[in-house]
């Protein structure tokens, strides 16, 4: 919806007076409406005079529907997102289109989004492929193989501690190696890199890697064993699992992953980097920038609500996303973000951790200028939104006695 930028293409058929009219329309309203009117002109074969009346009416209706000055859009947006929250299911897991992948949805996910959590509880990516790879399952699999993270554990048939010799033995599985397209040397190299060259002995004939751990305690060795199992050999880090699925609407093959690594995936050939995305908003912010993160917040929130069959206007979510990102970094909705960084002392004290804010304000000699809502409620004054925006006062005077 709103997350797509609307491409403005010049329609060569539109020229002269009509173009002028449309330009006027766009100036008065917005591009979305111009494009719609352009469509309709063609559909109904409107004449020039007809176009003129239509445009006049469109502008009139558009102006009628504008937000009025003073409107408390923030409160309305918060209510519009908060109220359906009560109707949402709390059930955490849902299938995200693919039966094999579970994704957190519903209220917990919505809270995760507004909390701007660093890591979503179920990180997942939707990887679209370029035209060359998205028609055939085989080609999609090729890309998937390149992406899937392979650890030592996943190509080894056995990893064990030999207490007698103070060694850790890794027995690699030839079949698995072949299947995952990893060579023995690659694995050995990675293990050497992590554990130090001197300690690692590789025996390519036996598919054995041995690590000397002379002088370590058993506990330490066990910790090391776990570490060794997790050594990253190939593929994009954190992409734990990939499910290949055919998108029935678009008829193309799409990859769904468990775990995210946006920068790595975007770099991989075969991936359509224009459409590929993740549900980790912070990752989007760090790789694609804050504007992309803002769109991601909108998309994710909208997706949660739509999945539950709840109607919420995208503009409300846009406002929340914009508020979370307008400073250039993602800020949480709550104590550690927007509410905690408000300028007004009283507003902060009125939300959470009351005393801390009062003490800090006193020592720094802050002045609360009473510009927000809570502050004015606290001192008992009219709140500066809606009808309270207007600063005109009528001085009531009694009229003279009526003539009898």
């Amino acid at each position: 919806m709103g997350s797509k930028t609307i491409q403005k293409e010049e329609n060569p058929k539109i020229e002269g007076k009509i173009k002028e009219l449309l330009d006027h329309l766009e100036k008065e309203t917005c591009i979305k409406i111009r494009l719609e009117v352009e469509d309709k002109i063609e559909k109904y074969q409107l004449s020039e005079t007809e176009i003129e009346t239509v445009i006049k009416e469109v502008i009139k209706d558009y102006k009628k529907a504008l937000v009025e000055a003073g409107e408390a859009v923030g409160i309305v947006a918060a209510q519009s997102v908060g109220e359906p929250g009560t109707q949402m299911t709390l059930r955490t897991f849902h299938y995200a289109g693919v039966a094999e992948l579970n994704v957190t949805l519903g209220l917990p996910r919505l809270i995760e989004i507004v909390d701007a959590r660093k890591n979503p509880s179920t990180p997942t990516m939707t990887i679209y492929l370029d035209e060359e790879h998205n028609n055939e399952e085989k080609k999609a699999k090729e890309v998937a193989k390149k992406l899937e993270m392979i650890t030592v554990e996943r190509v080894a048939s056995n990893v064990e501690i030999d207490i007698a010799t103070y060694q850790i033995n890794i027995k690699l599985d030839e079949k698995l190696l072949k299947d995952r397209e990893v060579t023995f040397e690659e694995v050995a190299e990675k293990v050497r890199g992590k554990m130090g060259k001197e300690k690692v002995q590789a025996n390519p004939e036996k598919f054995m890697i041995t690590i000397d751990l002379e002088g370590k305690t058993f506990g330490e060795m066990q910790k090391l064993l776990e570490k060794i199992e997790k050594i990253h050999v190939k593929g994009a880090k954190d992409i734990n699992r990939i499910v290949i699925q055919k998108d029935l609407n678009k008829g193309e093959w799409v990859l769904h992953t468990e775990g995210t690594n946006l920068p790595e995936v975007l770099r991989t050939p075969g991936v359509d980097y224009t459409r590929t995305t993740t549900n980790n908003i912070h990752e989007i912010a760090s790789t694609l920038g804050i504007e992309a993160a803002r769109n991601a917040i909108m998309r994710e929130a909208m997706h949660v609500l739509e999945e539950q069959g709840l109607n919420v206007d995208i503009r409300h979510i846009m406002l929340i996303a914009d508020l979370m990102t307008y400073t250039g970094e993602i800020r949480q909705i709550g104590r550690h973000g927007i509410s905690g960084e408000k300028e007004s002392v009283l507003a902060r004290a009125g939300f959470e951790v009351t005393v801390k804010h009062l003490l800090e304000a006193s020592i720094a000699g802050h002045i609360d200028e009473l510009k927000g809502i809570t502050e004015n409620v606290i001192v008992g004054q009219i709140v500066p939104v809606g009808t309270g925006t207007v600063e005109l006062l009528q001085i009531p005077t009694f009229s003279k006695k009526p003539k009898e």
Partner: protein
Amino acid sequence: MSLMPTKQVEAIEFGLMTPDTIRKMSVARIITADTYDEDGLPITGGLMDGRLGTIEPGQRCKTCGNRVGECPGHFGHIELARPVIHVGYAKLIYKILRATCRQCSRLKLSEEEKKELRKRLHKTMKLFGQTETKVVDEVLKKARTETCPYCESKQNKIRLEKPTTFYEETEEGPKKLGSLEIREWLEKIHNEDCELMGINPEKARPEWMIWTVLPVPPVVIRPSITLESGVRSEDDLTHKLVDIIRINQKLRENIEAGAPSLIVEDLWELLQYHATTLLDNEVSGIPPARHRSGRALRTLTQRLKGKEGRFRSNLSGKRVDFSARTVISPDPNLSINEVGIPEEIAKILTVPEKVTDWNIEALKRLVLAGPAEVEGVNYVVRPDGRRIDLRFVRDKQTIADSLEPKYIIERHIRDGDLVLFNRQPSLHRMSIMAHMAKIMPHRTFRLNLCVCPPYNADFDGDEMNAHIPQGGEAKAEALELMLVQKQILSPRYGGPIIGAIQDYITSAFLLSKKDTFLKKKEACQLLLAAGYSGPLPPPEVAEPEPMWSGKQIVSLIIPKGLNMTLKANNCRHCETCKEENCPYDAYVKVKDGRLICGILDRKTLGAQQPKNMIHRIVKEFGSDEARRFLDSLGKLLIAFISRHGFSMGLRDIAVLKEAQERIRAIIEEKEKKVLVLIKSFEKRELERLPGRTEEETLEMQIRQELSDARDTAGEVITSEYLNPKNPIAIMAKSGARGSALNLAQMIACVGQQSVRGERISRGYKNRTLPHFKPGDIGSKARGFVESSFRKGLAPIEFFFHASGGREGLVDTAVRTSTSGYMQRRLINALQDLKAEYDGTIRNAIGDIIQFKFGEDGIDPSKSDYGKAVDVDMIIENFVLTKRKEKV
């Protein structure tokens, strides 16, 4: 009550109180720990000193001379024998001690560094108006050097032992830092250095964080209560202050007597403990001060903090007069913007009315009616502010005669007065709407059923609140912005939230069915109920008796000029819509206010159905017309369904033997399939789904089969054995209530019960109940209920059903609290955002959040289900109709 605010608070400044200001504002130095003498009179110089304000009714304050309500209370003070550290600032003091020099008290940074940091600080001040905590933190960290760059003395390490004890790590070992010592250290800090440490020296010198004088709060904030037995019970704060004074006294005596420093030290520590707990009784590291009963004292911090604290409970939330609360009940005869107010309530709630030369006669009559009559007056307020309570007036005539312009009377509310009506939880703005009062007998609030959805109200004991706006501005705002019909369109999605529900929808469905025909008498009765007074159209059937179709009757109350098409609830979404010739009559078409075809149901009239008829009427004819339409539609539909009759009972879910056999067969077949699946799983022949284990695959497939069982059984019943006139089917079909699933559960089979989205699997070891063999994963052992609600559940099934039901209950309970907290945070973060005159969206301090709201500046509540302009509609109305006219 004056219309003009006389004073405005422009800003509130925060700062620390200097010892001098504390002394200056004090009206009494408190010296004795006793409160009252033997006669029960407050002791002068005690904590209940009369100069601190009064709490006894009738008594006058010794400082200001006012009585209880008017006297604001006055502070006293205690001179402390030794300074005491403010707990809240212990951490900051620690940071400052580490950043400044032990000898010369200067911030341990070179001049250049200071200059550079000061520059940065000023820059952030300019940009954000406040000191940037990041810069300050950096200053405090950087200055932790080991030698002072000014006096070059070596710095000892300072240690803070929580909450308030400081140690200096000298070469001879740790040495305790006394409060006097620390205070001296802080006193020497330069003002310029303060600024860098985030302290505003004009409002808060660092040494003021250590108390030498303690302000004693006025008695009004720590009132003592006299119990029935005559025993006085003091406030927690008073108790704490008594402790402080007692120890302070002892400490002073000991110091003066030159007692050993060990004793003085101990006493000082005790004083510090009491001062600490006076401020905050939940500091970690020390035991909270307790009442004799063992209850922890509620001291200053506790008073402010949390949901029940001063801020959230008393400052952000306020109590009001002129409000009422009672149970609600339905009344379909009221308009949607009316509310029935019980007479008893109406006689208590009042509206002020100014006496003028134009209304004096009417008001005199009201005054004569007095406070006991339904339309009467409770008070008369004279221009000098004197209030006359009419309850105690014998001769109302003289009062009525004395009325003159500029008098104000407080009259009872009467029909047509504005009432703000509210139901908690107030989750969105439609939770408070303005209604017109309608004074009625009996003791409940009455409301039209169509406004239930916005309030989310039902009548199982719900209570609601009414508030009476008192001033002109309040009334005007209520009338123009909050009236029910102005809220028909929800700002959440730009569609109607008010509309027909439940029986209204059933009734509309029955009335607008193709085969509903009404005789003249019936038609006239319905139209009379609806308030229609125009002529009858020509009857649709002339012979043998003139008959009118239900569609014709409904058409009469649809506004003339309404054109719309829409698909009904029972639309089958055929590939090509046959439109007017729809076999299910699901294509609703209204032309010039006439219902040409289609059944009216939830999609057309229901609440929360965007783009329905109510939506179109609001958009094209305005909200007042929509209100009229809803009112007369409601009455028409109620009249129809009460004549038609509609109910359901057990016989409506009883089906033929044959049908029961079919259901049994379907379920048995599916259960067999499940057995087959389990067999193949045990033989490890089951084909795994990608990315799933065999167990998971089996579970998924079993669940699939069993849900199929219920669905097909339900499907078979509804399509083959159910009378189309079955009331449950009608309700489901029209969307009034219930669904095909409910129907299937009642007639065919309740189906799989689940907990946490899985078949029920917990209970005993490897089995759900002792009735099954361990490891049984068959359908019945895992919560499949094959009985129907009609047949009744077997005990085991009943248990599983209860398990599933319990999860649902827990879920709702948890959900309300988590979603409530989320909404609180959302509101708090977004509340200051508003649209400015230039169309931008800004926060309280004027930062631009959006240049245009929602990228197009459109208010969703004025939009058409999110769309700013309905271009099709414009073309239809301004082009296509004209084209036709030409032809």
